[in-house]
């Protein structure tokens, strides 16, 4: 299947796309030194959708994801997440938005080494006041059960395999019932079989929890499962449904 053909395919993986827009990116530009990574990107992501961002290394896809997560500042343009414009938000407000509405999964293993799997999952809720500690703990246990790690609650990351660590990261991303999960090559460090299983888990849980998924990936097979696919080339979106 050619890239163009693949991009044209737009089977919704998370059911019918909602009309509600949760992410809007407008004319975003980003430069690192002399290199312009993003040259005016526009993108919209609807609630509950699985959108894949593809592109070669250096095309700017990870940078775009970081800007949407509020972890990177654009030089120009606007990003609106859950109706809130990121530009001008304070560090605290940005943290609150991420905590309540955004889950993140990275390529590299991203667990805190000193904490157990369960504590890692509960980490985003350390400052939650609306639920009790027992409720938060129960949700952490439930999520680890859902990712198949009921027997590993008290294991530290160093004693878990790569696939298990990514499962813990997925459970952590879902801990606060976010509206969208931003995933940056989440299977990039895993072997093919484990990567496939982690991806299936991410999609299943996304469907189960009604969570949108915006994923950066190199893998056409992964992109094939997305409802929307956009391809980035030289800092611009070259194809896809944006």
């Amino acid at each position, binding site marked *: 299947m050619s890239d163009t053909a693949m991009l044209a395919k737009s089977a919704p993986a998370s059911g019918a796309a909602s009309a509600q827009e949760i992410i809007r990116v407008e004319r975003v530009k980003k430069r690192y030194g002399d290199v312009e990574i993003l040259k005016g990107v526009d993108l919209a992501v609807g609630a509950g959708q699985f959108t894949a961002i593809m592109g070669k290394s250096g095309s700017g896809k990870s940078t775009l*994801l*970081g800007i949407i997560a509020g*972890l990177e500042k654009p030089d120009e343009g606007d990003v609106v997440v859950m109706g809130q414009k990121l530009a001008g938000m304070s560090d*605290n407000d940005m943290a609150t938005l991420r905590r309540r509405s*955004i889950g993140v999964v990275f390529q590299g293993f991203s667990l*805190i080494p000193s904490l157990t799997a369960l504590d890692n999952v509960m980490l985003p809720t350390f*400052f939650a006041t609306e639920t009790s500690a027992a409720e938060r703990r129960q949700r952490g246990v439930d999520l680890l059960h859902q990712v198949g790690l009921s027997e590993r609650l008290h294991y530290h990351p160093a004693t878990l395999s790569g696939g298990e660590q990514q499962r813990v990261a997925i459970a952590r991303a879902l801990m606060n019932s976010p509206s969208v999960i931003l995933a940056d090559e989440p299977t990039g460090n895993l072997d093919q079989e484990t990567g496939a299983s982690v991806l299936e888990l991410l999609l299943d849980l996304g469907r189960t929890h009604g969570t949108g998924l915006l994923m950066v990936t190199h893998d056409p097979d992964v992109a094939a499962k997305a409802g929307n696919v956009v391809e980035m080339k030289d800092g611009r979106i070259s194809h896809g449904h944006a």
Partner: protein
Amino acid sequence: MLRYAASELVFRSGRSLVTAVSIALAVLAAMVLTSLASSYARALRVPIETVGADVIVQQQGDIPPKLEGLVFPHPNALIPAGIVAQIKAIPGVIALTRAVYMWDLEPDRYESVLGIADSEVGLGALGRRLIDGKPIAAGDRAVLLDSDFAGKNKAKVGGRIKVGVDEFPVAGIVDAARSGKLVRADVYMPLKLAQGLASAAPQVRALYPFGADDANLVLVKVNREHLQGVVEKITALIGKKSVVSSELSMRDALSGVLFLSQSMGLIIAAVIGLFAAAFVWRATATSVAERRREMAILQAIGWSWRHIRAQVLIENLALAVIGTAAGFALALVIVLALGQVSVTVDLPWDLSATPHFIPTAAINRTQIITAPLSISWLTAGIATAGSLAIGLLAVLAVLALPRPQPWSLLRAE
């Protein structure tokens, strides 16, 4: 956050150990050094406190032409009433007790005689040490005897004793050695009586124009904050023959021992504290550098920089508390084990009840003084505040550095 902090401290046990041990050593040094310093300072006050004054004022004199009858000991020359009045007017002087100290040298006996004014360290102090008979008042013509002297000479209350050419009734016996705070002598009498005897004594008159209001020994109670100034002024007032003794004289005599200085103890503790702060800063900086990606992850999952700073702060404060507690415990053990400090000094003043030229006299002006070691709670408070400040400042110094760009540490590309 506490759970996270505890996990982190255990996980990075090497860093935790370095930090806690650095703080513990600083606290230990501060506590033990200041405890030693204050105990030495207390020990140095012991001899002077046995006399019941902060400053003993004497003046070097001459040897009388004949060693017979009532004489002034060599370090107890005339201190005129005018000089005494000027000493009393020095700012910082709280009270002053005049005295006349003499030896009565007879062919068959010798005795030391102290005529002293009616004050807390004079006749009042004698009254409290009475073991037989009754106290004497300023206007009485009677004497009190030291119990050792009375025992050796088989003197009793109601009997009479000869001082110079006169005889006086013995009103009472005192145990002058008990609890100190008194110049030791064999015979005690009211100041007026002694002044009269001195002014009439040929060997005193041969050397000094001793008047009825003069003295040859002055005990001064001083506001301790002004001690040094008072000592300097008295010394200037009396001149080069002055013997002005205080705890400062003891310190001067032992100036080679650094620990005797409280300020030196504090300086050493502060230097160790600075080294500890440098260690803690370094350990914190290393830890934060190692955890840059971890901090980026925390930011990505919804922790604000304020939360992250609070987390690092809690971890460091926990180490500061652990280090401080360990330092306290060690300091307590060391202080209890040492128990007390002991200093051997030569007394800078001469108030010997026994004339040095008496063949049988065994005069030992060297005194071993001891003082118990104890923890100063003020120092403990300062050390606690210092170690918490070390932990806090290390965190603030490290976190004040430019923040990492979280995405640069997390991105896949």
